[in-house]
């Protein structure tokens, strides 16, 4: 047999069909570029090939490979499936999970070029971001998440068997409604999901061991004997005000049983796990898109992929980073891929070939050379809001022709208050950054008081900014859920953040005969 001559610039693959050998070759080539040339740092990769149906499955269970059972996932699946079958919407080419090893799903329908793109995008782009961004480092536990989900799934199905589907569903419904109010926005201590599981198991064992039926017979203090405390003392005791509603209910709701608290805790942990992702949409996608673009270009330059494959890649790349203008029918806000990718490119450009304007705006960054290092730095240290505030350049604002519009319900017209010119740059940048600030995007709702000595009414407060109130029917429905968990009356007061004036009040009475002892 004659030796096969391998040239360094030989094509990695040919044609559209993929197989495991090709994927292995492509992966090695990409790994070389990503680690050696671009200096990326990634978790070990695990690539899983799945079918379209499995992709839909993953979609509906918020992208996680294993998830507890709940009707809302079934609902999402039903809708996504219909959209997909009717051709209203395509499927994502990949899903990637922030775990170690980092799991990327690739679909069997993809062509070889798409698989190459997906590996570059997910297995290196997102993976690098997950491992290096400070938000993820601070908030998520990539090692523990899959084990924790496994625990959650078993725990919840166990609860379903023991307490019935309806009871579990009621708690989960309520917890889901409060998911965005279930995160700690400021770190206390690093959460370790493995310890979580152990903690729960040990608590259960301890309870089983020390169970003594006699405690039931201890007479309760008669009503009205409890010393009434001053308001400030009471609030301090309960840790109020508290913005993490799920946390508060888990710890303080008087009528919940242990397993119900544990369900709240599970939902809270999952919500917390996704909190960084919500804050880094632009950066995360920008990073992955920038990485795949660099890698694919490099593969093409070195002759490892064919012209045809490169054109196919460009086609999907341009449709991913397409940004319709505001008056376009397809417009639905800024495309995070487009903005992220444009900003990454811009950062590299400023670092390597700055203009005078750039020098003025970015004295530290301009002309420092090594664009890749500059971009990596940005990936590590920012979230969307601060990233836009720090790096959005006048050059890019002009390129995207950004302008800001003020919509005041009292005025008959919308007002264009800033455009992409000397006077507007800073304001536009500030406003765009705010558009990505979760603290600003999500209503500021806190638990402010509980009358523990009296009727145990739970009082929540929404600090209204810019006069935008809560959606009434939804707010009411969520309050109903809170009341189900809390067990007593719940009130929500909307106050103006500026004048402290009460704008609106919602109240839900105590649930009758909730199945809690």
């Amino acid at each position: 047999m004659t030796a096969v001559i391998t040239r360094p610039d030989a094509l990695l693959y040919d044609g559209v069909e993929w197989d495991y050998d090709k994927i292995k070759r492509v992966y090695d080539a990409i790994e070389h570029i990503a680690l050696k040339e671009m200096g990326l740092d990634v978790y070990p990769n695990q690539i899983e090939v799945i079918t379209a149906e499995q992709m839909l499955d993953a979609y509906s269970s918020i992208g996680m490979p294993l998830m507890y059972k709940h009707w809302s996932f079934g609902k999402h699946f039903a809708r996504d499936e219909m959209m997909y079958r009717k051709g209203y919407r395509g499927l994502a080419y990949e899903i990637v999970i922030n775990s170690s090893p980092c799991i990327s799903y690739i679909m069997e329908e993809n062509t070889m070029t798409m698989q190459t793109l997906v590996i570059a995008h997910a297995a290196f782009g997102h993976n690098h971001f997950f491992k290096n961004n400070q938000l993820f480092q601070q908030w998520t536990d990539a090692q523990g998440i899959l084990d924790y989900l496994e625990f959650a799934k078993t725990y919840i199905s166990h609860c379903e068997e023991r307490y019935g589907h309806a009871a579990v569903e009621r708690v989960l419904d309520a917890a889901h409604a409060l998911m965005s109010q279930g995160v700690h926005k400021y770190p206390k201590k690093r959460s370790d999901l493995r310890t979580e599981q152990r903690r729960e198991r040990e608590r259960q064992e301890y309870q089983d061991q020390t169970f003594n039926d006699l405690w039931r017979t201890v007479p309760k203090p008669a009503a009205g004997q409890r010393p009434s405390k001053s308001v400030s003392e009471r609030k301090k005791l309960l840790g109020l005000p508290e913005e993490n509603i799920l946390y508060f209910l888990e710890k303080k709701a008087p009528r919940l049983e242990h397993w119900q608290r544990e369900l709240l805790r599970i939902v809270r942990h999952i919500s917390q796990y996704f909190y960084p992702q919500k804050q880094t949409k632009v950066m995360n996608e920008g990073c992955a898109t920038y990485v795949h673009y660099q890698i694919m270009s490099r593969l093409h330059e070195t002759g490892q992929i064919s012209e045809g494959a490169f054109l196919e890649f460009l086609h999907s790349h341009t449709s991913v980073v397409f940004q319709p203008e505001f008056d376009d029918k397809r417009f639905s806000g800024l495309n995070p891929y487009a903005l992220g990718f444009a900003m990454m490119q811009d950062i590299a450009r400023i670092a390597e070939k700055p203009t005078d304007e750039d020098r003025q705006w970015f004295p530290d960054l301009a002309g420092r050379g090594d664009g890749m290092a500059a971009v990596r730095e940005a990936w590590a240290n920012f979230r969307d809001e601060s990233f836009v505030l720090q790096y959005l350049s006048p050059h890019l604002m002009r390129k995207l022709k950004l302008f800001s519009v003020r919509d005041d319900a009292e005025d008959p017209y919308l007002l264009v208050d800033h455009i992409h010119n000397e006077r507007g740059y800073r304001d536009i940048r500030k406003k765009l950054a705010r558009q990505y600030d979760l603290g600003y995007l999500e209503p500021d709702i806190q638990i402010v008081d509980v009358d523990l000595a009296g009727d145990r009414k739970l009082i929540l407060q929404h600090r209204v900014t810019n006069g935008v109130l809560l959606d009434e029917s939804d707010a009411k429905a969520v309050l109903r859920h809170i009341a189900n968990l809390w067990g007593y009356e719940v009130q929500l007061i909307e106050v103006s953040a500026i004048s402290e004036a009460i704008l609106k009040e919602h109240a839900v009475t105590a649930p009758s005969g909730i199945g809690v002892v």
Partner: protein
Amino acid sequence: MNIIDRRLNPQGKSLANRQRFLRRAKEQVVKAVRDASGKRGIQDIENGEKVTIAAGGVREPSFHRASQGGVRDYVVPGNKEYVEGDTIQRPDGGGGGRGSEGSADGEGEDEFRFVLSRDEFLDIFLEDLELPDLVKQKVKQSESHSLTRAGYSVSGSPANLNLVRTMRNSLSRRIALKRPKRDEIRELEEMLREAEEAGEDAEQIQALREQLEHIVLRSRRIPFIDPIDVRYNRFESVPKPIAQAVMFCLMDVSGSMTEHMKDLAKRFFMLLYLFLRRRYRSVDIVFIRHTHEAKEVDEETFFYSTETGGTVVSTALEEMQKVVQERYPDSEWNIYAAQASDGDNMSSDNAKSATLLRDVILPMCQYFAYIEVAAEHNMGLSALGRETELWRTYKQVQSPERPLAMRRVRSRREIFPVFRELFAREKAGA
């Protein structure tokens, strides 16, 4: 890098979630299905259905800001002509510059649409319908039997010998009676041979020989397999329920039947077919149309070709009787019949039809449904409180013990309720 092929993993991971979802939305789904069945075409009744349900019951509420009111700022791309201080007409319906408000959850939508699979659709569609009790009566008479395993017996044909059971009995008997093992005999023979070769004293050899003789005799007396060990598989013959049905569609196609009436009839037949299909392994359909004479035809002709002539109902019943005799003996088939007509019949034929129905057709049928269709607007004679010829005729035949049901239908919307009424659970016939 690890690459794992997950394609062969068990499918339908989300099935449990889907069941939970359907259970949650049950009330609305049932309503949607009922509505849909009133509207949809004949061909697609068997397909899945895209149902739209009110989002209320499956809403996932969250605290979020209202879409109206207050002051909002948006940064949007693609400025063409605006300069600072310009005003823009407010776009209606929240299009235009809505910024990044859009939520993937489709909040604010009043409706939720999704596709039910065929089975799910039919399950809900035919829920709480039951075949008339008469089925049981038929099963009792059924001639068909099948054999089922039913334990063991001590007699039987060699082909049915149960080896395992037989050997087990043999083994326990041999242990209980201490039948000498083959190894023991062989050992003793060996000892004897050694003793003889070694030339030991005759007395000892004699003792060994006797011992050997004794155990050989014992092993002969206690047989390896005794007739009392033998067991045979026992089979019992059980009557097999008849799992096949034939459905007769009888329809008057004379000039007085309008397209609308035929459509109503067709819908009813379709429902009956679906219903039978869910319950029986195989369902045959026979289409018989009649004017003043009856003919068995194919489905296409049955529904779509027109015919002129008078109306003699008894011809159709005779044709049905003929077909049953030729192809569907009522001992082997469950026979269902549905007749649709506008109620016309030749006066001279009424008596004959009644006799035929009472004496021939009903005794062999599981169920006979008579549907009288009327024009939607012209309410027909029945609306005036007068009964049609055929209605009067059949009414004479009707009695609690006969499997005959009669209903009037005027519009498509009534078809399903009437059908449900006819087959409602816990209620045999009309």
